[in-house]
């Protein structure tokens, strides 16, 4: 009968693994050579370019070899890997890439080493304050910002120009633009506004942005927040967005927009480079703008991005920290931007004339990144998100009213964590 419950057993076995086993031993070493293992998610850009950077680091740091171990692109799977592997006596990797929403959790769990000494007060001036806030727990810095992401509005410049329209600044303007262009184009295959509505973290980001852009707070609830959620539903109801957004994630929307099948798209900054690469049907036809807001409010994007951290029980913390210094240095950040199309985590680089010449779109990005807001910075973030995900999804597909969904989310958060736990840190 044991085979019949192998799923349960597997879950249990994994739970036990997380609970008590040590990770596998660090790789064997040649005499004098130290191998550091670097875990990170799959890159959207060219992995060769990144590997070249690591080889460069090895040349500059004799006796150190860097081994990359790439995790799946799905952030949920990466999170699971870290959770299962960080709670051991020894950890089989020395450096890891941490999503901004995990940093507090990992630091709270005691899995990360303090890295205060890596960023001197003067160096912190070059960083984005929201990234530093995400990486700071109980007054200590546990991770160093690596690269940035923020929610943006992508639009088809050619189509907007054809109808004499400017990029929309408010949501009603976006709805009007979609109607005008769809009426004029008479192309049933051309969708209006694409965004991420699948029951996952992406939906939570979109909903936060809509609420913030109306001066509301999702977890606070109330009429304004409910209005943001019902606007999400209206987009689909009024065919501004196709029904398929309710099941769409970043890549689904990026592909559809990238095939020239939509006028607008909300997506992270990573999509820009992919949309502009050789062979893309929308190359040079895409424009970029801050997300619209509701009339009378400021546009606010959700802040995304990745940090570098060292496990507390890493075998070679000193060498791992040297690699962090290298990867976050202005010079390498510039190469990451040029070769991989990543958005540097250093504010000073956005003032670098040569870099802005080569990647002019970063100039437009700076105000968005500077104004981008963190999702609640708390060790309990994933619990909050997993409460919000099904509720928002239910509201989106009209299984619940927006008011009901938000009230239910607030009730669950209260039952699990008490009131406004994200503010207690």
């Amino acid at each position: 009968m044991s085979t019949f419950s192998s799923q349960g057993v597997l879950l249990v076995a994994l739970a036990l693994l997380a609970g008590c086993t040590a990770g596998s031993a660090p790789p064997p070493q040649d005499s004098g050579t130290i191998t550091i293992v670097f875990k990170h998610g799959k890159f959207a850009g060219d992995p060769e370019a990144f590997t070249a950077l690591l080889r460069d680091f090895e040349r500059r740091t004799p006796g150190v070899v860097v081994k990359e171990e790439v995790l799946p692109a799905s952030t949920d799977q990466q999170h699971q890997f870290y959770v299962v592997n960080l709670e051991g006596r020894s950890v089989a990797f020395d450096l890891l890439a941490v999503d901004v929403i995990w940093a507090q959790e990992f630091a709270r769990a005691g899995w990360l080493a303090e890295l205060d000494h890596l960023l001197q007060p003067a160096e912190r001036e070059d960083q984005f304050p929201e990234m530093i806030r995400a990486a700071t727990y109980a007054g200590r810095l546990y991770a160093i910002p690596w690269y940035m992401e923020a929610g943006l509005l992508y639009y088809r410049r050619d189509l907007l120009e054809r109808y004499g329209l400017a990029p929309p600044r408010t949501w009603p303007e976006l709805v009007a633009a979609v109607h005008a262009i769809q009426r004029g184009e008479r192309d049933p295959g051309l969708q209006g506004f694409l965004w991420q509505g699948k029951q996952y973290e992406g939906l939570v980001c979109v909903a936060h942005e809509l609420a913030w852009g109306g001066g509301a707070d999702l977890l606070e609830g109330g009429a304004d927040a409910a209005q943001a959620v019902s606007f999400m539903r209206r987009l689909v109801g009024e065919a501004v967005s196709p029904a398929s957004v309710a099941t769409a994630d970043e890549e689904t929307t990026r592909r559809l927009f990238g095939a020239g099948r939509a006028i607008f798209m909300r997506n992270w900054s990573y999509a820009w480079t992919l949309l502009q690469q050789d062979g893309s049907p929308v190359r040079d036809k895409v424009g970029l703008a801050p997300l619209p807001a509701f009339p009378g409010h400021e546009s606010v994007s959700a802040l995304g991005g990745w940090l570098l951290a060292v496990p507390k029980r890493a075998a070679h913390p000193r060498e791992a920290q040297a690699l962090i210094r290298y990867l976050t240095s202005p010079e390498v950040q510039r190469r990451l931007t040029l070769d991989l199309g990543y958005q540097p985590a250093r504010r000073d680089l956005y003032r670098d004339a040569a870099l802005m010449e080569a990647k002019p779109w970063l100039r437009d990005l700076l105000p968005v990144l500077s104004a981008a807001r963190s999702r609640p910075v708390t060790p309990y973030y994933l619990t909050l998100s997993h409460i919000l995900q099904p509720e928002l999804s239910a509201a989106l597909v009209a299984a619940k009213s927006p008011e009901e969904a938000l009230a239910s989310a607030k009730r669950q958060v209260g039952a699990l964590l008490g009131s406004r736990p994200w503010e207690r840190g």
Partner: protein
Amino acid sequence: MNGRDGHRGASRRGISERAWGALFAGPALFLVGLLALAPLLGAVWLSFHRRLPIFGISEFAGARNYWLLWGDERFWAACRTTLHFTGLSVAAELFLGLGLALLLDRVLNGRAAEARWVQAAVLIPWAVPTVVSAQMWSWLYHPDYGLLNYLLQATGLVSSPINWLDDPVRALHAAVLMDVWKTTPFAALLLLAGLKTIPRDLYLAARADGAGRWAVFRHLTLPLLLPVILIVLVFRTMDAVRIFDAVYVLTGGGPGNGTETLSIYAYKTLFQTLQFGYGSTLATAMFLVVLALTAGYLLLLRRHLREIAS
């Protein structure tokens, strides 16, 4: 059976053989215990704790988690979803699998070379890794460029594309359809093997007695196939109750938790929100559901075997 009608020498050897048997089976039993039983007991142990590493909490909680479980709407919804999924998909797989098995048995009777090819072809959906087939189906279901909508529109059955996954009820049935596509071949092959064990003479005799096709199926094939049917039911039910990867890739449990099965809920609780104690409680509850269903089937199977024996 065991030695009741055997003579003395045999029974004495039987005891020593049993001892030898136990000795040889010992390491295997130990391994099974270590690999299957120990983690299971570990989970049950954890399920009585409140354990959240990020809170730094690890304490004995008694039956508190089970009390929470009792009042947990999401758990009961996941139970309903899981049982709905299981009931529908297993019924459809058995029904279609039986049809397919009868067809294969009839068409391929005696033609060994073709039989091998057809059997291999039929098995393809089952051989495709679940995650891959789930991704494939998510493309088939896609409202804008999915093949399913294209076919429905091309044949004029629907006027505008249907989004199969944007409605909780529709999405759950889309998941059932995917599972049926994937595992019907497995049911069919087991049933086909069962059909092959029925002696052909019986059919000839029935024909000679003037039984019609339906009568042969109803009074000969079905009763003789029943043990295999029960085995298929047991296997498929256990698999369907534990369904995780297929649905997780297809919908992530959404929309609105409409497709959240017990495993998905347990997975999210354990590995996304790190509630190891309560997550283990969910896993244990799921194990109990599986155990209850298995026990029911085994009782059914045993009674049936006894009837056949008598």
